[in-house]
């Protein structure tokens, strides 16, 4: 449990690319709802999940809603803990400058330790 009674540490683990499947979009919908419950929320972007945060998504050609601006709105919901896997970025030729939002880049080991400290993990 987290320090405050009644507050749990929720981590959302995102490991999938956007658009190929709906998981990224529907995960974001859960995150926004969770914010209303005053829990300790963090998001982890691992593996292909880092692609969710890529700048410059233009979805007109696939006739699908571009939901990437929503990541920018998370701050307004007091969701500020966004962790991104360092090795996943590097493998995909990405740097923090390629991302839509400010994030904390952590290596896998650090992410694994953080995951161990959670009360609830939701993986999509």
């Amino acid at each position, binding site marked *: 449990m987290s320090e405050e009674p009644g507050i749990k540490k929720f981590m959302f683990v995102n490991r999938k690319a956007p658009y190929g*499947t709906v998981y990224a979009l529907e995960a974001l919908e859960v995150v926004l709802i969770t914010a209303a419950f005053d829990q300790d929320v963090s998001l982890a972007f691992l593996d292909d999940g880092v692609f969710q945060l890529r700048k410059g998504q233009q979805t007109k050609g696939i006739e*699908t*809603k571009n939901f990437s601006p929503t990541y920018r709105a998370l701050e307004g919901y007091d969701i500020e803990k966004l962790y991104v896997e360092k090795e996943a970025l590097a493998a995909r030729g990405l740097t923090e400058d390629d991302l839509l939002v400010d994030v904390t880049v952590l290596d896998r080991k650090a992410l694994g330790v953080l995951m161990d400290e959670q009360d609830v993990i939701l993986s999509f």
Partner: protein
Amino acid sequence: MKFGILVNEGPYQHQASDTAYLFCKAVLAQGHEIFRVFFYHDGVNNASRLTEPPQDDRNIVARWSKLAEEHGVDLVVCVAAALRRGIKDENLAPGFRISGLGQLVEAGIQADRLVTFGD
């Protein structure tokens, strides 16, 4: 040229049905013919008339129905896969029909090309 199309995933969860739809539109725009679109596996869920996506999202089922209405495209839902997943005449969207797997094989025989969209 005659195209047959196989759609193996349902709407929204996977991009397969979006890609299949946009491919079909391009097939017609190029002056080709669509012999049949066959919906198999979770693809049968593309035929549910009860879907109601958010206002700002595309309506996948309605798009298929419109394609059938405007271009006479034959949209066939596999009966066995549909029964397993709860698609029946009572919740079938306009433009779709339920039939057997033989319709897929026939598409393979009659069409010049068969393209599969799935996961």
